[in-house]
């Protein structure tokens, strides 16, 4: 009993330590003070100024850029990665190993190396860096994760059902659409979500590929801001909002997963009977 109490206390203390900085941000998002850590009375000013455009345009631009880049990169990575995974799955063992190795490179590489290597590529090719280069760079480090999340689905799939569809007169395209895609969809979705979050959170690769024309994402904006000596206060409100949205999403997903598991269990029991 005491042991249990001790161990749960440990978890709680550790969680408190992890959450302390975030809790501070959330608390100080309800005060107007420019400096984090200085309480000047309760106010929702930061939230209203975030939504009414009271903040400077460059922050709004950075937020827009972050989302545009993340959406484009995530969708492109999911398409490229899914098609690639289907192809790789069908390859001979030795070639498959080579491709898998190349696919793992961006995952194993620290992001600073990915950033610098792509920077050198764009510089050598004489490409002006900007939107396109950032998106290409994000596709480069997101797609491997899509391949990795789609692949297990393909491996689990019964290869005969694709053949069966062909035998029953489906064109390869129809077989793909109605047989393979539904089977691998969960992998595609988790790849898409993973890419989206990786892209939104990226800092190291973006800073090396965004060029000198002043293209900023949220990360690079915060970095520039912090170097100038402080976080734009509205970012406290934005971070709090992101945290709450993610929390709600996770609760919903968790709740749904639990309900589905329960349903599956019930179905299994009725089938047994």
């Amino acid at each position, binding site marked *: 009993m005491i042991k249990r109490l001790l161990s749960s206390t440990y978890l709680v203390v550790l969680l408190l330590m992890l959450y302390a900085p975030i809790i501070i941000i959330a608390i100080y998002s309800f005060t107007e003070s420019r400096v984090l850590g200085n309480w000047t009375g309760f106010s929702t000013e930061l939230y209203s100024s975030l939504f009414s455009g009271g903040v400077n345009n460059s922050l709004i631009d950075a937020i827009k850029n972050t989302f545009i880049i993340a959406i484009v990169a995530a969708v492109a990575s999911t398409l490229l990665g899914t098609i690639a995974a289907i192809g790789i799955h069908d390859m001979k063992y030795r070639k498959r190993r080579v491709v898998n190795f190349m696919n793992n490179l961006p995952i194993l590489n620290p992001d*600073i190396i990915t950033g610098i290597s792509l920077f050198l590529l764009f510089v050598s090719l004489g490409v002006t860096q900007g939107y396109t280069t950032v998106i290409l760079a994000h596709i480069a480090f997101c797609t491997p994760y899509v391949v990795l999340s789609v692949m297990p689905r393909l491996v689990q799939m019964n290869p005969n059902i694709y053949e069966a569809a062909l035998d029953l007169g489906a064109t390869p395209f129809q077989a793909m659409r109605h047989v393979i895609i539904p089977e691998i969809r969960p992998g595609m979705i988790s790849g898409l979500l993973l890419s989206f979050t990786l892209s939104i959170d990226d800092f190291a690769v973006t800073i090396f590929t965004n060029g000198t024309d002043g293209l900023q994402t949220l990360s690079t904006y*915060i970095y520039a801001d912090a170097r100038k000596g402080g976080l734009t206060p509205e970012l406290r409100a934005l971070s709090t909002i992101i945290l709450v949205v993610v929390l709600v999403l996770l609760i919903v997903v968790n709740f749904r997963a639990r309900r589905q598991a329960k349903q599956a269990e019930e179905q299994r029991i009725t089938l047994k009977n």
Partner: protein
Amino acid sequence: MQSRFVKFFSRRRNWSIPYVLFLVVFVVVPLVLIMFYAFQSKDGGFSLENFQRFINQPEAANTFIYSIGIALITTIICILLGYPAAYVLARLNSSTARVVVMLFILPMWVNVLVRTLATVALFDFLKLPLGEGALIFGMVYNFLPFMIYPIYNVLQKMDRSLIEAAEDLGATPRQVFTRVVFPLSMPGIVSGVMMVFMPTISTFAIAELLTMNNIKLFGTTIQENINNGMWHYGAALSLIMLVIIGITSLFTDSEAEEAANDGGLL
């Protein structure tokens, strides 16, 4: 023409070709370019001058060793804090455990730089000085979930009957842990080490913000060189980092394989 195109892509293995080309252009060639730049002098010929400069310039070399030290300390603290947490988590019932694991991962959704600035605020709030302590706290804070998660995964999947068997054979709880549970959780620790050590050794920005620019890590040195147009030297430093990471991953790979084999034998 069109039918040849259709025929080519009706073989599914050919579907991987666009991605393979993409990988070559955006992953393989850039990495080769790092090597190319690293061994090139400013006037374009082959040279080792960038590496000589690294050895002769105590500042960069010192930063390099210091960064490895910080990464090691961070990794060790993460193991010491993370292992017990993973162990406790693995003993909870699965639905509670899932919620707690989620709580551990949730902070990762706040932008890394915002979290780092929040750590700075926390230290200010508690009137603690910003420096090495803050740096290590910030690193542990950022990477601890990456240690807990893989260890938890391994512990949770561990075959309970092995523990019961050890108990039946008269092992004390301590022996059960040191002889059975801990060796079997090695693969989790190894992947945790990979996921903590590698990013810590390559971070930049985080260190700058946590120490008010007082402590420089190797990542920062690389970034500064690249930003200041010293691509060749920056590439050489990147290559040195890549080598360290390659060595670590080789070491941890064989370790993980060994541990997996041991697990298989059992």
